[in-house]
């Protein structure tokens, strides 16, 4: 870090601490986005916040909210002959009802990790005798990219490429969170890159109708600190607004081109979110015009009824209703090497982070919190 950056961080830390002490009462802030969870963990920002702030990880993590059914289908595809499942690395170890893509690979399943959906398209071009099923997970940041891949597949008449669509949209989930009587939230740290696409406008209802303030945040430690400052400032000043901290990347109307591509290929549908249940219009489905690239239609997976592992309370954890330690599986049965639920898969997920920090303190200094 150069000197101006260090000075900026010092100033922001001072602001956060100063405002935290001015808060009229303890506050619960939710950081919605999984990438924010990781950034907060890696920078140790929770150690800067005073005891009046509880920072809760929210459901903005595709790994965590994807229900078992999608993983079960992906595993089925991977184990079929002449079929390759192409997926982002995030989903590789996520457990479904019985297994994971990682385990399927040990049994001979064909799974290819890709960085971009266009890599999956190239894989299909290079392997015309194989079906390539791309696991489409992610929110509005990722959906336009997958839509673009489907458009290219149509353009090139690539019949062996298809998408198993599990995309979801954020504002509807936030509405459910905001209206949950058991969650007492005073502010949201809103996802910066989803907002690059959708802009600021789709969140306004939170402040106007649900009395829930939010700040759209970037991902550098300085961005997150500034966003927390802005939330604290709103609370202290008695304001309830949606603000943009990530001004360099987020405009009120978002990326219209990306939204147009998304809407060309996908339509809204009801979607099941782990922990939140079925939320109306919170999912994306592939439009009929592109049904030849919809894996659920072209090559439906033959799976049994998905099951939830008894005792797994990932749903409650990712909505902030329960702490990981309240889960009966936490630690002995469910841990990063052998995760039962998705919250434990990454060492930076809610449960993974808590696992790392359980009962540990660094003596002589302030406790190290997750």
């Amino acid at each position, binding site marked *: 870090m150069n000197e101006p950056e260090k000075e900026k961080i010092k100033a922001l830390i001072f602001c956060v601490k100063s405002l935290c002490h001015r808060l009229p009462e303890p506050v619960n802030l939710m950081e919605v986005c999984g990438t924010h969870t990781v950034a907060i963990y890696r920078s140790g920002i929770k150690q800067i916040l005073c005891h009046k702030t509880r920072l809760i990880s929210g459901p903005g993590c595709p790994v965590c909210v994807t229900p078992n059914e999608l993983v079960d289908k992906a595993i089925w595809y991977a184990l079929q002959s002449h079929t390759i499942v192409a997926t982002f690395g995030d989903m590789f170890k996520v457990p479904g009802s019985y297994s994971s893509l990682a385990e399927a690979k*040990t049994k001979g399943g064909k799974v290819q990790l890709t960085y971009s959906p266009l890599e999956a398209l190239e894989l299909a071009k290079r392997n015309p005798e194989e079906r390539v099923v791309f696991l489409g997970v992610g929110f509005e940041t990722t959906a336009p990219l997958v839509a673009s891949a489907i458009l290219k597949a149509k353009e090139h008449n690539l019949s062996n490429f298809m998408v198993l669509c599990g995309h979801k949209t954020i504002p509807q989930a936030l509405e459910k969170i905001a209206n949950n009587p058991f969650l007492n939230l005073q502010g949201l740290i809103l996802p910066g890159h989803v907002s690059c696409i959708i802009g600021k406008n789709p969140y306004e209802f939170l402040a106007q109708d649900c009395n829930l303030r939010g700040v759209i945040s970037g991902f550098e430690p300085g961005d997150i600190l500034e966003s927390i400052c802005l939330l604290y400032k709103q609370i202290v000043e008695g304001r309830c607004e949606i603000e943009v901290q990530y001004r360099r990347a987020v405009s009120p109307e978002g990326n219209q081109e990306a939204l147009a591509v998304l809407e060309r290929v996908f339509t809204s549908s009801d979607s099941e979110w782990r922990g939140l249940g079925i939320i109306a219009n919170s999912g994306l489905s592939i439009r009929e015009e592109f049904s030849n690239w919809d894996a659920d239609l072209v090559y439906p997976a033959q799976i049994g009824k998905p099951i939830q592992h008894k005792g797994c309370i990932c749903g409650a954890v990712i909505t902030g209703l329960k702490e990981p330690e309240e889960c009966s599986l936490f630690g002995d049965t469910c841990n990063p090497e052998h995760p039962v639920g998705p919250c434990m898969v990454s060492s930076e997920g809610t449960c993974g982070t808590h696992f790392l920090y359980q009962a540990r303190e660094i003596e002589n200094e302030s406790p190290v919190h997750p």
Partner: protein
Amino acid sequence: MKVQSTPRWGAELKEKEVIKLAHGSGGKLTRELIDKLIRPKFGNRILDRLEDAAVIFFPPHLLAFSTDSYVVRPIFFPGGDIGKLAVTGTINDLAVVGAQPLVISCGFILEEGLPLATLNRIIDSMQKVACETGCEIVAGDTKVVEKGAADQIFINTTGLGLIRTKSSLSIERIKPGDQIIVTGTIGDHAAAVFVARQNLPVKTSLISDCASLYRLLESLWNLGEKIRFMRDPTRGGIAATLNEIANRRNFGIEIVEETLPIQPEVKGICELMGFDPLHLANEGKAIIVASPESVEIVLSLLKQHPLGKNSSVIGRIVENPLGLVYMKTNLGTKRIIDLPVGDPLPRIC
């Protein structure tokens, strides 16, 4: 709460567990495999020290003996190839216990259909490194398996060296207050190999740091007791090495984020893929634990060699927290650095 790693669906399925790729990545599962399956069967006082090379008293000499197998993909990558890696890897395992590499053996497992020109290139590469280091490949073996039974070529090398340090390098000699030095930028090898393996549309000058550390580390051998311990942080990155030290001796390790030497391109790959540079493999770097008063001389000796020009102090041994490695972040906060679970997976989240 006691933390245990137990099979996911209950103890009765333990027998059905299979080897996963993560068992070979140098992180938690590798440790589990060694601790629960291998050591209980093979264990002896030499093996149980789990040093990079076994040190054997063969009066009047102390010998060092090490073996390693190489399965890297792709077999040719920017900065090296599987052959160069196989020889430097074993040379480095000897060098970090203070041994001059004398002789190396090499075993090839070749897949039917491997072009002879490819094998020739790899052998040339191995001989080049051995010559430069002043040791010889004196024994070997070649096996060929059917197409599909191996991925082109696997290599095992075993090395024998002569301990040259005045006092023994041992994890047992490390004390709170000792300083931790890394001999250069971290994560170069893993990042370069990842770009090559994934065939990412990236143009970069980033290359693997694959190199023999013998000449670099030789300069430190006369410092005697001031050098407590050395290790080359390969699979699992410096996080794996530091955690091994902290766990074995049950003290803590503090590293300082600001001091970590990382090339901009490696930072870029990490930001793009969601990797943690602390978990990325290195093949031409050493971690050196040295007494506080010797840091200046150690750094000045290392920096005289081209491979050591970016050497820096990255942390220190502390009394507490017991058995933990933590990092002081640029924000002044503390973050635990754990063993990675498996190989780093590219993320979009």
